[in-house]
């Protein structure tokens, strides 16, 4: 390849990269109220979460962020560490966001111990902070204005209670990300809802999303080893499909439910192959914080949620009755 061609190719590649990189989503000229403290065009909001956009769940959150940025006409910049569990990395991203003196900051708090120092610094610098997704139990203490999300333990508990009502006696919880506190809380809530006095004694299976066949084989093996298993809760849609295959192969009546939605999960619910999905409406977890911070910047209006600033987006339950309505939206990354 001669040098000119090569240079041309590189220039092309750079253009493509530039076009696809996390360019700030800018608004389409939406205008705020007259007399607002700041103009919308001047509002810059930084979002730092622990969710890479390559994750199905977080892709929807990010779509919510983008939609809000465009609806509000504000500039939003989204960032996440390369590894979901990389808390030092996430802490550094928060520091970097604060250094830009944004109009507002949106954070998720999967690990309060690791992220508190960075968040406290942001609050101390006078930046309005709204947390989302995880951190419902600590946001108040950190001086965060509001939290948009679902409480994981209660969501798991709701699933457990539904299983109990369906007559489930011996259920397992499949955790695809051991070490994530939110997922541990979901399993604990689930076992509590099922009536276990010590939820940590509940049977937890583990696996990796990178290996669907391994997840299916693990669930098959558990069912073969303990024939009394009559209920399975998965904590994400990527696990639901392998779990469904394992349940169907077992030839038994095993209740199956999952956290979060996908087109696949919704089809299975519609067809009666799965009981329900727990929907935390994560699109709103991306959308609402941008709206809240925009209004706060303009007029200092701030919703109080349940009185403490907690604004719940879940848990909602998608069952056979309403699954069909959301399938198309899920396939577009809006649910």
């Amino acid at each position: 390849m001669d040098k000119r061609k090569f240079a041309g190719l590189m220039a092309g590649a750079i253009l493509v990269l530039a076009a696809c990189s996390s360019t700030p989503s800018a608004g389409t000229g939406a205008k705020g109220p007259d007399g607002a403290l700041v103009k919308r065009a001047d509002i810059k909001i930084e979002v730092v979460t622990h969710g890479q956009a390559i994750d199905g769940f977080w892709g929807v959150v990010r779509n919510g962020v983008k939609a809000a940025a465009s609806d509000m006409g504000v500039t939003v910049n989204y960032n996440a560490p390369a590894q979901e569990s990389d808390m030092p990395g996430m802490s550094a991203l928060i520091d970097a966001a604060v250094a830009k003196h944004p109009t507002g900051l949106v954070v998720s708090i999967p690990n309060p111990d690791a992220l508190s120092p960075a968040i406290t610094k942001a609050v101390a610098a006078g930046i309005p902070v709204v947390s989302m997704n995880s951190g419902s139990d600590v946001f108040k203490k950190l001086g965060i204005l509001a939290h948009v999300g679902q409480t994981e333990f209660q969501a798991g508990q709701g699933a457990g209670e539904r299983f109990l009502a369906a007559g489930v006696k011996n259920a397992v919880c499949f955790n695809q990300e051991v070490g994530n506190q939110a997922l541990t809380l979901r399993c604990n809530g689930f076992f509590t809802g099922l009536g276990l006095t010590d939820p940590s004694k509940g049977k937890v299976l583990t696996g990796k999303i990178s290996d669907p066949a391994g997840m299916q084989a693990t669930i098959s093996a558990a069912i073969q080893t303990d024939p009394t298993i009559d209920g399975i809760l998965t904590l994400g849609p990527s696990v639901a499909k392998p779990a469904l295959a394992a349940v169907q192969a077992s030839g038994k009546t095993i209740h199956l439910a999952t956290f979060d939605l996908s087109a696949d999960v919704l089809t299975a619910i519609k067809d009666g192959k799965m009981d329900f999905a727990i929907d935390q409406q994560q699109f709103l977890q991306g959308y609402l914080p941008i709206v809240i911070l925009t209004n706060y910047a303009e007029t200092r209006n701030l919703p109080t949620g349940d009185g403490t600033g907690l604004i719940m987006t879940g848990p909602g339950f998608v069952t056979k009755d309403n699954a069909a309505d959301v399938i198309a939206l899920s396939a577009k990354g809006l649910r």
Partner: protein
Amino acid sequence: MATTTASAGPAPERLRTVSLTQRLLARPAAGALVIVVFVFIVFAVLSEARGSSAFLSIAGILNYVGVASQVGIIATAVALLMIAGEFDLSVGSLVGFSGIVIGIVSTVWGLPIWLAIIASMILTTGLGVLNGLIVVRTGLPSFIVTLATMFIIGGLSSVLVLTLTNITFIRIDPDLIAADPLAQLFSWKFSFVFDGATSDLYVSVIWWILIAAVGAYILGRRKFGNWITGVGGSPTAARNLGVPVARVKVTLFAATAFSASILAACQSMQFSSADIQRGGGWELQAITMAVIGGCLLSGGYGSVVGTAFGALALGMANIGIVYASINADWYKIAIGLLLLTAVVLNNWIRRRFAGLR
């Protein structure tokens, strides 16, 4: 078989007696076979002790053989590449990329599935060729080059999927898969019902065995196999003997990528979906299998059959832990211990019986 004579003095080397055990142990796959048998016995005993015989049942065996077959499909090519003295750290990201291409072409663009599979195979193999060309043209260690391409390919998958779809988990219509002629090669399974429960032999197992058999045949019986060992053992000597070193390496990188696309096709047809996260971290699992199988990190020595045994051992340990009702956190510890044991065992066997160092 020749026998030694009673006369004094050592017999000529060509007449030396070699016992059957010694000849078996001299094969590079010997250590891996020992490991497989060991893992099998450990988990059979553990699960029986916990009151479950499911590990030994047909359903149980099919279960972990199915798991072994997944990484096993890419492990053969990874082993051949290692024998030729190179690594491919990008193979895991290639699995994710290849699946995403199938998902985009079939579901997002609505083209036939056979076309999606062929397109993904061509693109993925092309990236493998690129890996090989960069390595042989720059002379850089493949560890570094493929570390870089691992990031690039992983990033490319996200950019592709997020630009075109907004979602990272693409559903592929199972009815379309069932009706597609080429998809059958990757979605087929042999099911039989026993006691109300269905057991499945997935086509991925057949692909795994087929690829391993072809790999073993090439390595052991064909000129190209000799070239692979020669290139890994001493590239300069191989080049001086007229072996096309660059061609051998590029071919092997391409073969590795191609096997990644076969695995991606199996996964996306079996689970009627594509997920960008699939295959993540499998490059190291494949290397683990190859090392258990007797491949040397320095190249020039190794076994495809041993690598297949390595895959089986890891699959057994992965699922055996569930049958034995042991906390799955122990799986990683088990892999590490197996790897260390295998390397020590392989080293010892190689010195003691194969007369190599």
